[in-house]
């Protein structure tokens, strides 16, 4: 019994130092799909109430790493993880950890807006409902989440309408509201603006700034300007190509303050990428 409640990190006192300022900490992470290594040796601490951007060319494993942070990779049967991803000091891949609970604490917003084919209201209350939140709290959760996602004024009079009737940008903000509704501590955003026009993108970027004092945000983006605009720190990933089988393995090149990454990065590969000489 005592074993169950004890966080695994206590077994390794040295790790506590690393994890105190970090909500999430990715340590020596490698991800395999079947026998193929998609990502290797990633070290990436995610600091609380900051926005961490992950940038890099296609196929460099940014999304794969992101999906390890709330065990979304469990959906892919062949995926296997080595190394550790700790959340508040607890290894998320510890067999005693409940992946469903992890995803409530670490929410996710996907590349394409994916609202449920239900009403706006039902989209938001679904997470709380299955988490066992009392029905009497639903109205408050809906309003609160929609306000935080800057969508309340646009939809407050049609909460019972289908979410599929909203525009793409509104749908994505609804998805953010849906993720917020389960009161997560971390929000993972997987290229949340790649399907949106510049105006809708601007809305989402403003929104991220508004909510970052309450949540910790990790965003994967293909858009370097976006990373430079919104994030506090930036992690640059790239891919090594195995000349034998032409397969790509992603790795983290460097992680630093966003201003440093975009002005004087320490690695030549980063500089080539951010100045547009590569990719």
């Amino acid at each position, binding site marked *: 019994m005592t074993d169950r409640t004890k966080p695994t990190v206590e077994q390794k006192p040295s790790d506590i130092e690393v994890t105190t300022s970090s909500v999430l900490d990715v340590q020596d992470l490698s991800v395999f799909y079947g026998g193929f290594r998609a990502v290797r040796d990633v070290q990436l601490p995610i600091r609380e109430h900051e926005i961490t951007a992950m940038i890099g060319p296609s196929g460099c494993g940014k999304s794969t790493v992101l999906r390890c942070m*709330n065990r*979304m990779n469990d*959906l892919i*049967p*062949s995926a296997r993880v080595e190394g550790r991803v700790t959340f508040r000091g607890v290894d998320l891949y510890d067999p005693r950890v409940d992946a*469903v*609970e992890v*995803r*409530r604490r670490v*929410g*996710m917003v*996907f590349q*394409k807006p*994916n*609202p*449920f*084919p*239900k*009403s706006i209201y039902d989209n938001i209350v*679904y*997470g709380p409902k*299955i*988490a066992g939140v009392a029905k009497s709290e639903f109205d408050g959760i809906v309003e609160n989440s929609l306000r935080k996602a800057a969508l309340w004024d646009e939809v407050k009079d049609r909460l019972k*309408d*289908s*979410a*599929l*009737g909203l525009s793409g940008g509104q749908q994505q903000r609804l*998805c953010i509201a*849906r*993720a917020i*509704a*389960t009161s997560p501590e971390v929000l993972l955003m997987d290229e949340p603006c790649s399907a949106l026009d510049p105006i809708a993108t601007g809305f989402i970027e403003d929104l991220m700034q508004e909510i970052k004092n309450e949540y910790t945000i990790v965003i994967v983006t293909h858009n370097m300007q976006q990373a430079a605009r919104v994030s506090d720190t930036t992690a640059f990933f790239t891919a090594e190509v195995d000349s034998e089988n032409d397969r790509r393995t992603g790795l983290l090149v460097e992680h630093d303050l966003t201003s440093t990454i975009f002005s004087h990065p320490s690695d030549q590969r980063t500089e080539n990428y951010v100045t547009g000489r590569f990719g």
Partner: protein
Amino acid sequence: MATIQVDAKRHVEIGLGKKTDWAGAIFKISLIGSILFTLLILLVLLQQVATDGWSVLTTRFGDFVSGTLRSDPGEAGIKQGLQGTFWLAIITAGVAFPLGIGAAIYLEEYADRSSRVARFIDLNIRNLAGVPSVVYGILGLTIFVRALGPLTGGPTPLAAGLTLAALVLPIVIITSAEALRSTPQPLREAAIGVGATKWESIKDHILPYAAPGILTGTLLSLARAAGEAAPLLLVGAITGRLGGNYGLTDVSQVRERFTAMPIVITSWAKQPQQEFKVDNAAAAIVILILFVLLLNSVAILLRNRFERKRAG
């Protein structure tokens, strides 16, 4: 005038002139031909049974539907056949739908699709869907009529319904699995992403999304089962007169001797009298077709309803 002449041929000169696509035209015409031919066959069939059955359906429709199997063609009716088919449909649906949909959910959502066992099972289900219905009749006779006789009561609607359920099960599994497979990955991710368990995501999102496809496939397979005669003959449907007169909703008849519409039709068609083999058989066929059309319409209605729901 001269300049206009030049302009008018300009498109030909620079290679933009219209060319006739003969191969394409022939292809299109042959496609239209195959549709027309299919429709023609169907129309001739329908017209044939409708004219043959017309006199019976118009002069004594009520008696024909409520009458029992008799030796006098002017008095014989299809009540027992309709009732048998009705109960067979209920038993078949009641057994095959939950089993088939359950198997499909397991295969699609839980089984490791790349594993050898899963692929072996998948292949065999596809093969089973192509097994002739007579073979299922023999299976039904051996298992449901004889081995499980004490339970089913021998050659009864229960045994026959179970046989037809086994017959449509592979089709139900295949169509349901295809409907489940077509559920978009983003919908699954959305559910899992807000903390749904696997079961919750299936129950709340994947099944409702796949419901129209599942329903259409399963009800169409039921319509096919309703028209099967061969397996019913093997499991002991009665071709002649039938004792006992039950109300439509009397459940006790599922453990008694029975007949069904396809059996009534085939046995009448073999009779020497013109009134039986042409008039009555055709009228019964019209009613069986109506029954099947009814099932199909229900399938379409339900599908539309669920699709509207799916659209929000």
